């Protein structure tokens, strides 16, 4: 029974969210929350099952249509994919519970003319389906379709904010996404033209063995694909679209995008770079690392300067994504100890949990105060202690302070960099942590400020209460990002480390 379920886990992780998305759409605007949440819980169970199986029995395969690559499309889940699937289902489930409370509150607000939650459920469910499909696909053209599914769903979610800035942000995001997937598609076309297949399993040996005449084209293809994906990953300097899109959306959307969506394309960069494209791209590994380091410094600096709370959190994403790239040159050199990819995955998971919690907390704070400046959070420690605690816990993970998952990842990254004598990376990682502390404590110390009595009264008058379920869902995410550092490191690193 369990064995059969594991066999089904791969396709079901795609079919379930697709079905619930379609049904949620049929149910009509603003409806379908329970359906999507139930499906999401089921998916989480499947992902857990999958991770457990992979941990003991190795990667899991599923040949769609029964043809098998290269004619058909294969689905493959290894430890890395399983970890990302687990992250996606877990964060999505918590955020969906959060979103139900958040949008429920929204819909009672009469002067909010465009309730952002009208089409949240089908779109979010399509988004999760797209990401799951992306993590499982072993076919570079199929990956293109999943990228488009994720990209368009994310653009739709950004636009759901309804305001002019959100529409502009959605358009900016759309054009960036299309440019990125366009470059990726041309890369796929060139690889197919060079090798006659779009299956990663077939391409990997073919690229490794290819003649010089082929490799020029293949190199262009590889650079195109990676550049396209980096645009979608918002790696500095391609980050221009991210802050408005993530900073301006409704809180559940920002959280989904920052915690999960950018990770999908980064996952693909890693998977392709360290997989089939490795022979072509090996000399370029320092480039993403330098960009990642710049992202850490630039994003942190922008976050320190940001006036708006959610923009601060969005720039923090720009910075934190940098950590996922700086390990790329380290991954090439073989090292004893923990596999570099596993460390990057740990960082991705820690950031996903923490950032989802932080955006959710920021959303609750904005909801309660009705204002969005960092200076407006004064007095929050008194009014929303749980949410502030959530924000702080998430911040601890982002700063890389113990005992969080972010800390563990940072420790291992520094260890890795030192082992290879890359002192400049150590400096960047340490500096990034300190800069993160500056922007996060900017918020926290403001939150502890007392408000004059009169203002407290006025705040209570206009306060909009966010349901407790939303607050607790956000807290659960933040707490997980901390617990990850204590209990999640060993299983996660073993799951991923064994696979790549």
């Amino acid at each position, binding site marked *: 029974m369990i064995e059969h379920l594991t066999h089904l886990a791969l396709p079901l992780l795609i079919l379930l969210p697709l079905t619930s998305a379609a049904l949620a759409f049929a149910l009509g605007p603003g409806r379908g929350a329970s359906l999507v949440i139930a499906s999401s819980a089921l998916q989480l169970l499947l992902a857990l099952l999958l991770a457990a199986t992979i941990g003991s029995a190795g990667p899991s395969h599923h040949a769609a249509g029964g043809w098998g690559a290269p004619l058909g499309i294969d689905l493959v889940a290894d430890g890395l994919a399983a970890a990302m699937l687990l992250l996606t289902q877990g964060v999505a489930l918590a955020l969906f519970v959060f979103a139900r409370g958040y949008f429920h509150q929204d819909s009672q607000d009469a002067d909010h003319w465009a309730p952002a939650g009208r089409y949240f459920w089908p779109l979010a469910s399509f988004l999760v389906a797209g990401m799951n499909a992306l993590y499982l696909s072993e076919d570079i*053209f199929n990956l*293109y*379709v999943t990228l*488009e599914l994720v990209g*368009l769903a994310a*653009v*739709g979610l950004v*636009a759901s904010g309804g*305001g*002019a*800035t959100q*529409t*502009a*942000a*959605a*358009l*900016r995001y*759309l*054009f960036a996404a*299309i*440019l990125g997937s*366009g*470059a990726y*598609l*041309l890369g*796929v*076309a*060139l690889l*197919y*033209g*060079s090798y*006659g297949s*779009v299956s990663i399993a077939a391409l990997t040996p073919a690229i490794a063995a290819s003649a010089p005449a082929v490799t020029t084209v293949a190199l262009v293809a590889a650079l195109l694909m990676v550049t396209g994906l980096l645009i979608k990953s918002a790696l500095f300097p391609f980050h*221009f679209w991210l*802050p*408005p899109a993530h*900073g*301006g959306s409704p809180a559940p959307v920002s959280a989904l995008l920052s915690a999960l969506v950018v990770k999908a394309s980064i996952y693909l960069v890693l998977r392709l770079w360290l997989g089939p494209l490795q022979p072509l791209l090996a000399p370029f590994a320092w480039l993403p690392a330098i960009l990642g380091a710049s992202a850490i410094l630039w994003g942190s600096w922008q976050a320190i300067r940001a*006036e*708006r709370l959610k*923009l601060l959190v969005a720039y923090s994403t720009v910075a934190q994504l940098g950590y996922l790239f700086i390990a790329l040159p380290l991954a090439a050199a073989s090292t004893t100890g923990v596999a570099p990819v596993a460390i990057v995955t740990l960082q991705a998971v820690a950031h996903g949990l923490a950032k989802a919690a932080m955006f959710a907390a920021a959303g609750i704070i904005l909801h309660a105060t009705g204002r969005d400046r960092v200076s407006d959070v004064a007095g929050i420690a008194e009014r929303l202690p749980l949410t502030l605690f959530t924000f702080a816990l998430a911040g601890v993970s982002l700063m890389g302070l113990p005992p969080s998952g972010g800390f563990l990842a940072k420790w291992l990254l520094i260890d890795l960099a030192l082992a290879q004598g890359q002192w400049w990376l150590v400096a960047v990682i340490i500096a990034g942590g300190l800069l993160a502390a500056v922007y996060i404590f900017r918020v926290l110390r403001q939150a502890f400020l007392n408000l004059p009595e009169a203002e407290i009264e006025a705040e209570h008058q206009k306060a909009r209460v966010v349901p407790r379920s939303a607050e607790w869902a956000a807290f659960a995410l933040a707490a997980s990002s901390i617990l990850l550092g204590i209990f999640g490191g060993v299983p996660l690193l073993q799951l991923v480390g064994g696979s790549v």
Partner: protein
Amino acid sequence: MTTGLLFALTGVVLFAAGAAALLLVDHLLRRVLAFNIMGSGACLVLVGLAQRNGVPDPVPQAMVLTGIVVAVAATGLALALIRRLHAQTGATTLPRDGADND
């Protein structure tokens, strides 16, 4: 030179021109044209290169059909958003970089 290779090369030029235009052009409708042209270029390369020996290859042809549907989807969404932005602000271009940040 075969038909396939010729159109693959045409596709490369179309892609480069479309991508450059996507980056350079301000008017939103023209950006939609640009990314469609860019996508068409990529599709031409996909089929043309696969058929550079003159024999039709149904696999990339089917992929291109998928690609066209995706392009239509993106076009429809982009146009809807453009019209919405215009209805809200009267603008037909995006605000300058970063202007919509704050």
